[in-house]
């Protein structure tokens, strides 16, 4: 999956999960107050099923994944290292 496809999937996931119409690459979902209590398990399910990879514990900290850009960088890093489920 190339960069644009990943970004498109991540943006579409976040807007659906957080029920927001629009989300720019650097919008901080924590500061926007969008995150609900079930967000993290939606995120894990989305990443594992869509990209077939398992994030490390540290990476599942909300502080590290506040924007579309953060998530795309994370996913791309995993794809490069080939760490997959």
């Amino acid at each position, binding site marked *: 999956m190339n960069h644009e496809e990943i970004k498109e999937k991540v943006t579409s996931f976040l807007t659906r999960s957080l029920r927001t119409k629009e989300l720019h690459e650097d919008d901080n979902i924590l500061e926007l107050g969008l995150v609900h209590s079930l967000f993290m398990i939606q995120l894990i*399910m989305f990443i594992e099923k869509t990209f077939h990879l398992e994030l490390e514990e540290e990476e599942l900290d909300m502080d590290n994944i506040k924007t579309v850009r953060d998530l795309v960088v994370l996913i791309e890093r995993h794809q490069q290292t080939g760490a997959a489920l």
Partner: protein
Amino acid sequence: MNTPLQTPAVPTAEAIRRFVDTRIQPQAVQMDQDQEIPRALFTEMAAQGLMGLAVPAKYGGTAADYATLGAIHEELGRGYASVQNACTVFGMVCKPLSRFGTEAQKAKWLPAIAAGEVIPAIAITEPGVGSDIAKLETEAVKEEEHIILNGRKKYITLGQVADLFLVFARLNGRGVAVLVERGTPGLRVEPLHGLMGLRANMLAELSFEDCCVPAENMVGKVGFGFTHVANYALDEGRYTTACGSVGLAQACLELSFHYAAARSQFGEQLRKHQLVQKMLSEMITETKAARELCAAAGRLREQGDPAAITETLVAKYHASKTAVLAADHALQIHGAAGCLNGNPVERCYRDAKIMEIIEGTSQMHELQIARTFRL
């Protein structure tokens, strides 16, 4: 524990249907009366692959896909709700352990659980804290290489017999999940008898008094206890409880069909009376609707769609209500015969109500569904 790792085949719903008909349903009345699931049945269930449904094949599990998992839980729920709920608990421990556990935790526990050698339990609820799990009072303190637990847990399914507890607590105010083995000094287990329904759940109350476990027993990071581990467990539990509720409704329907054909009043079989037909039609429709909601949730779960979480809430909410409705109609159709202790309908009536309480009450589902829609 040295369990040889085999990779058992994922059981099919058909195989479990036969197992339920021959091994679970015939013992249901006895289990309800004795308030226990015999250990031998756990062994048989493990041989069927039922204990490893949420365990990856790599750790000796059967890792069922969500459609299969749902169909299996429907069959189990049709057989006996307590057995179905026991399997839910296995999933609620194994799923988060597989996802957030360390390699050492997974290698030590998952194969033994899948093999039926270790019975797990999940301990969230406390005497003072039920639905509002973020307010848990059980306290964890980290001291060098140990975690020390103090507090109490209540209504813990399989607690009477469990070998391993996944315990939720608060460490410096942040949620943690910790594995505690039975027999750990400072852990006391007291049976809770006399439940109305799901009587064979073997509930227990746990108390932790300076209960000291190695720090490496923590599952996930400090702070992950509620947002990650408990939510992951509850989401899984809601799905299988929804499917089990469909099975319970289906059992009520089958018993009612049979009785309405066998019994006659006013010169006609009960099934020929229109007011009885109304009850049966409602049961048929609602059960089908609940099954479809479970299937929809299962499909989305399999795809990793974020909507899966809400669909699972919706499915559990509707399916547990359907179980209650179906049990109510079934009892009405059976009249006095259904009120007699030992009649399966009487047990289903008692069991169904509990489905609206476990893995989040109906009110909590209403609130969470509303929240995920940003209402």
